[in-house]
């Protein structure tokens, strides 16, 4: 049949520069994901099965038979559960206060709540030691001895660290509620408490669930707080560290890593489902809820929110303060002498971390941009599995990824060995550790870009390259800026992923802080932390300024 023949010839198109470019856009980031995420994860899995004479489950049976492992697992789950309950509860109070109540000074609450994100996680632990430790301000003032090392100290430190996430996620769910729904309920005679029970809570349900899983994952995968304030309270993350660094037992470390991976993967999978459910409930053209002042409710909520914020400020602030104290707690005179850091390579690791963070942010932003650009032009069945892969790294704890890297790149089996011990590799691990968040942020930007814009550019004669530069990049510029600074700030403070990859010649800021604290130089650790926080704060302010400038320019383009 002649018809069948034309059908075949029509379907086969000559290779065209744009198609090649599309595959390049997808191919390069995809190659990165395979080399620097999938492959190391396969290696860590294989190593967990490696025994003296080939492969087997001997490592697993050995780990499962050890009391230490079960203690650490129980501790991790208990700590994860308690921290989650506490931070979601406190997070809901603050989010509800910010979005559903009317009181002045919300900007202050908003500002304070992100503070824990601007510092390495071990800063909360340091702060608690300065406040509640044996020589802490509170302990001395009250003349009592508090045992801060262990469960309670770790619980508070982890809660402070997870709280910003809880506030942001629950807040995002509360913002979605339409004011008209409340007006309708009001007209129908529902009291404020009924409205809260019947409208607010059900609508925030998925946000709360989502926040719970995120907090749980953050807590059980965190290493910094556990290392500084955990004391004898061993958790899975510290267990991996002691297996690998303490006992040089990589295979056993891999086993514990795989065990830590299980709950995080499950938690992440549920979280993604919850997020999908929440997004489908979103209506278009909604009217934002504007709370009016209700004296009793708002005074109480404001007081609670400020109280929690005061706690955060105290814990972070005391670190900054202590860094200037001459000899804590005996000579409280202020002096800058702790900033003269000579141990652990001095400030060289801070500069190195900045360089690494810029590398991770630049390369990472470019990689997710190319990936997003290419994915738009791929058929759905090809794009879907790549999207799933791109969203996977968030399920992997930093410790596990770090371990996977050392197992993969510290082996002379492949040319990838050349990367071992370089700043580039640390930049790479930081990017892939936070790949998911960067990718998903940019994808929301891409989703807002109407396909007709690219099609219009195409029919005017613009190829993929031109369209990317002239049309796509300007459109999603705010998202690119956000992703860049997000990757930069995370790279500045992350500890768990990089702790295995630093060498005596190449260290990063968070590891230096841990080493200084280990060496008993707590004040110098505080000083170094303060420097890191200053850099990250500066980055955050630059981001806000850039975004504000962009939105002002956009507004001036949208109004006559």
């Amino acid at each position, binding site marked *: 049949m002649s*018809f*069948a023949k*034309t*059908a075949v*010839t*029509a*379907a086969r*198109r*000559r290779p*065209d520069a*744009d198609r090649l470019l599309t595959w390049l856009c997808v191919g390069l980031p995809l190659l990165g994901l395979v080399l620097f995420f999938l492959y190391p994860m396969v290696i860590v899995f294989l190593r967990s099965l490696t025994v003296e004479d080939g492969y087997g489950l001997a490592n697993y049976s050995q780990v499962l038979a050890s009391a230490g492992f079960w203690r650490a697992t129980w501790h991790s789950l208990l700590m994860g559960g308690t921290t989650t309950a506490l931070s979601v509860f406190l997070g809901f109070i603050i989010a509800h206060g910010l979005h559903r109540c009317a009181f002045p000074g919300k900007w202050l609450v908003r500002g304070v709540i992100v503070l824990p994100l601007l510092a390495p996680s071990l800063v909360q632990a340091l702060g608690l030691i300065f406040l509640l430790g044996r020589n802490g301000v509170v302990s001395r003032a009250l003349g009592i001895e508090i045992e801060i090392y262990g469960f309670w100290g770790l619980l508070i430190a982890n809660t402070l660290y997870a709280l910003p996430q809880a506030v942001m996620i629950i807040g995002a769910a509360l913002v979605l509620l339409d004011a008209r729904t409340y007006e309708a309920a009001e007209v129908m005679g529902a009291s404020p408490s009924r409205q809260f029970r019947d409208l607010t809570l059900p609508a925030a349900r998925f946000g709360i669930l989502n926040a719970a899983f995120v907090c749980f994952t953050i807590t059980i995968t965190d290493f910094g707080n556990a290392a500084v304030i955990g004391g004898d309270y061993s958790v899975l993350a510290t267990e991996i560290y002691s297996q690998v660094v303490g006992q040089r037992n990589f295979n056993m470390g891999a086993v514990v890593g795989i065990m830590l991976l299980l709950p995080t993967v499950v938690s992440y999978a549920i979280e993604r489902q919850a997020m999908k459910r929440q997004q489908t409930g979103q209506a278009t053209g909604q009217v934002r809820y504007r709370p009016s002042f209700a004296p009793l409710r708002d005074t109480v909520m404001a007081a609670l929110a400020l109280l929690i914020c005061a706690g955060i400020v105290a814990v972070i602030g005391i670190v900054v303060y202590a860094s200037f104290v001459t000899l804590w707690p005996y000579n409280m005179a202020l002096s800058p002498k702790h900033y003269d850091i000579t141990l652990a390579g001095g400030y060289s690791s801070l500069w190195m971390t900045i360089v690494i963070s810029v590398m991770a942010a630049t390369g990472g932003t470019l990689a997710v941009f190319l990936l997003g650009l290419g994915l738009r032009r791929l058929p759905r069945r090809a794009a879907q599995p790549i999207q799933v892969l791109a969203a996977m790294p968030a399920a992997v704890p930093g410790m596990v990824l770090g371990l996977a890297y050392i197992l993969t790149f510290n082996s002379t089996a492949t040319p990838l060995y050349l990367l071992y011990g370089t700043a580039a590799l640390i930049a790479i691990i930081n990017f892939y550790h936070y790949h998911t968040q960067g990718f998903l942020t940019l994808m929301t930007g891409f989703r807002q870009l*109407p396909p*007709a*814009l690219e*099609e*219009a*550019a*195409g*029919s*005017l*004669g*613009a*190829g993929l390259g*031109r369209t990317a530069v*002239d*049309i796509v990049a*300007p*459109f999603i510029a705010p998202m690119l800026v956000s992703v860049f600074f997000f990757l930069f700030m995370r790279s500045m403070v992350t500890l768990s992923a990089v702790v295995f990859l630093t060498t005596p010649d190449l260290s990063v800021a968070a590891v230096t802080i841990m080493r200084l604290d280990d060496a008993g130089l707590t004040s110098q650790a505080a000083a170094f932390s303060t420097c890191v926080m200053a850099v990250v704060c500066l980055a955050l302010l630059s981001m806000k300024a850039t975004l504000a400038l962009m939105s002002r320019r*956009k507004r001036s*383009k*949208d*109004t*006559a």
Partner: protein
Amino acid sequence: MYLTVRDATKTYGSFTALDRVSIGIDQGEFVCLLGPSGCGKTTLLRLIAGLSDLDGGQILLEGAALSDLPARKRGFGIVFQSYSLFPNMTVAENIGYGLKIRGTHRSEVARRVSELLELVKLPQLADNFPGQLSGGQQQRIALARAIAVDPRVLLLDEPLSALDAKVRSELRDEIRHVQRSLGIPTLMVTHDQEEALALADKIICMNHGVVVQAGTPEHLYHRPRTRFVAEFMGISNLLTADAVRRAFPDLPARQPGGTEGNHVACIRPEQIGVTPAPDGNATVRNISFLGNLRRLEVDSAGGPLVVETHGSDACREGDRVMLRLAPDACTWVADDLARDPAEVRA
């Protein structure tokens, strides 16, 4: 034919969006693809633009196959329903973008841009951004942007659908004027039959992925071939042969080939004459006053009919009237909607 589409086929999984569709556009012709949503008209336009790939068939421009050319090398202009101006560029930059890509000298671009702004009557907006413009203005700029590169074919994808009624009719005239004066072969997709009637040299009426009928607006309106076309192109009275005989006993009811069951008579409301007569054969049930005309619903011996009259006929609701119909004002159409559309095609 200048542009020829031959046996174009497009499937999405098991859904056939286009089934061996063949159409043609002549030099300087304005062609409208008309049909309800989901009939495949936009799919066809996107295939012609090169924005999606054919599963079968051919698209030829002046005899040369286009299938291998990506959209950016076809040299076509396109205007979308959703304005789709580049928000980060000024009006002038938007219009000049295609020329800039072609490496046209900057002074030449500026000259052409101001010429086009004059053409769409918006010279004062050159330095504004799209966000500062009204929908109608944005669509004019989109039109200017599409014709800036002297496109070989102009493609319009429901360009007026997002606009208010008044702006829509203004821009409709404008599009017609621009297209006539430049003589660009144009293909417009629309679901609005009034728009198609007003603009097109040729209307291609589509349904369920196939072309149902193609021809001049007059032809499609007065001589629809199927019930679908008759109903889609304005109001019509569709009667069985039996009902026609009862309603208009004087009319020699001719019909093609005796296949009475498969055909119905299509009678346009303005072709039925009404005169008040106490001994008439119908009763006025309802009258709607529409300004320039009156629409009467009358009960005849053949069932209810819609009649439109100009002038001030003194009919009242409940009056008896006499209905008249010229013998050639009645078109027999295939009753394609009563059955599975696949069968009608066969």
